């Protein structure tokens, strides 16, 4: 069974707004695409349509937050990161305002829309801002749980959603900043974020079946603060790691994990990511394969990384 994360987040926000009279949702003319149009319909008094003006939307949210509200602004990843990077940095993060940036269309997942609506650099840009929390759920259940945690967390949060329907995984207890093991394995762990979690699980199954390799899969749903303790433990235990992300190889999960590994326990880190390029329009599965972020690429990276480990 698959679910759009936007659908899950709409459900979660509709619950939260009943519990929290400070929650208010802002949107920049893309409520339907983000998935929260229903929220806007059912809670018109807590939904501010800001029109096509993302910078103004983020500023308005910061002003609302300074008066005790918990604003959730929503748009696409590209516009909710690069377009408003300075507003997030100077007016949300620097004064530590309780603003949540909810974005859909993370990665190359708005496949047909092409480069202007895809986002391969947002995680890097936002991760570099001091004090930001950066979250990417990996399915509908984690999306609901993490959005609740994001709203409860005092401070600015960037919440990135994949635009594709993602396989629903069994619900798990989640904690911000703590990676979670979704599949046990004895040879090597794959640390995946967002939509890549399901693909990593797929890769792990085929590795087991076809090559007898036992790969563990961890969902790193919080890119920042990163679960450094987990990464150190995995590096020490397995002697090699693989990361998988729908983001540029520059400044994403792979580099973040590598920093922790080189600082503590240097071991090979294989990275599955977009290779510093813009993508293009196409079917999602085709794009994943073309840009080498498909399950087959994860499997190949696992083998290559184990090979590097064995040569050490």
């Amino acid at each position, binding site marked *: 069974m698959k679910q759009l994360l936007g659908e899950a987040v709409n459900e979660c926000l509709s619950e939260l707004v009943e519990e929290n009279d400070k929650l*208010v949702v802002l949107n920049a003319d893309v409520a339907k695409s983000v998935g929260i149009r229903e929220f806007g319909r059912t809670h018109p008094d807590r939904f501010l349509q800001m029109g096509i003006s993302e*910078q103004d939307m983020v500023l*308005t949210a*910061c*002003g609302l937050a300074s*008066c005790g509200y918990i604003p959730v602004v929503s748009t696409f990843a590209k516009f909710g990161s690069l377009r408003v990077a*300075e*507003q997030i940095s*100077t007016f949300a993060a620097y004064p530590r305002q309780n603003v949540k940036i909810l974005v859909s269309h993370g990665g190359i997942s708005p496949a047909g829309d092409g480069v202007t609506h895809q986002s391969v650099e947002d995680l890097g840009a936002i991760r570099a801002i001091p004090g930001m929390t950066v979250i990417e759920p990996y399915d509908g259940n984690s999306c609901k749980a993490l959005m609740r945690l994001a709203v409860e967390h005092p401070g600015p949060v960037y919440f990135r959603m994949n635009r594709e329907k993602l396989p629903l995984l069994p619900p798990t207890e989640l904690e911000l900043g703590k990676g979670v093991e979704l599949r046990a394995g004895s040879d090597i762990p794959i640390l995946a974020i967002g939509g890549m979690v399901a693909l990593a699980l797929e890769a792990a199954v085929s590795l087991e079946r076809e090559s007898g390799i036992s790969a563990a899969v961890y969902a790193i749903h919080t890119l920042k603060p990163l679960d450094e303790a987990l990464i150190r433990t995995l590096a020490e235990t397995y002697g090699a790691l693989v990361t998988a992300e729908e983001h540029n190889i520059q400044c994403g999960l792979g580099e973040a994990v590598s920093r922790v590994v080189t600082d503590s326990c240097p071991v090979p880190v294989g990275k599955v990511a977009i290779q510093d390029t813009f993508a293009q329009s196409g079917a999602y599965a085709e794009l994943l394969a073309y840009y080498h972020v498909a399950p087959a690429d994860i499997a190949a990276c696992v083998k290559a990384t184990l090979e590097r480990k064995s040569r050490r």
Partner: protein
Amino acid sequence: MERTEELRRISTLARQDVVQMIYEAHAGHVGGSLSIMDILTALYYGVMNVDPRNPQWEDRDRLVLSKGHAAPALYVTLMNKGYFSREHLGTLRKMGSILQGHPDMRKTPGLDFTSGSLGNGLGLGNGMALAARLSGKDYHTYVILGDGELQEGTVWESAMTAGAKKLSNLTAIVDINGLQVEGAVKDIKDLGDLRGKWESFGFAVTEVDGHDMEQLYPALLRTKEPHDRPMAILAHTVKGKGLSFAEGQMNWHKGDFTPENYAQAMRELKEALEG
């Protein structure tokens, strides 16, 4: 008449403090601080409902200094209102100071928001005004913008929001001193018909001499009267107002006082007090 006379006096004393503050810091935005000094004085001493003993009071009127580089004028106003003690006056721009080069709401008591990057204050003010509407509070939000700042596109995104949402509890005050860092605003990028622009974005516009308390103070008081849309007060001002050698001078946008011009500035302001 007595009230405006008193406001003028407070403002001149505040100008002395601004000069002192920037003299001790060896740097600061002199011109744009002095052009808004009368506006801030009228607001904090005659118009805004605030409580310096309770800076976070939920029902207070808010002010966003969108042209954050004029921080010294706001710092002096807050200091003289009693938000913090005079001992901080000499610490502007120094390590560990509560008085950062540009306003930091987490460091200076009485600041309603951080600012300094131009073009962003009106959107912040909209958020505060919308918060008042959502929570049924009747406080008013004031945003002070520079004229050069109006070249930022975000100002107009936010002006459109304020107009479309009829934020009658919001007032934008534009400090029209005619100068920006590299020259006259009209030469760098002419703003055209400012009154027409603000009116077309849904604002009720008032134009005043931003240094004439007889015009400025009543215009600001009128923001508290019931109306159906946001207000824009276009305040015509003089950059560096009050210092003969700095008035209308581009090179006094940001500056450092020599002992000589510091002495002259203090002398001129003293004469203004006595005059």
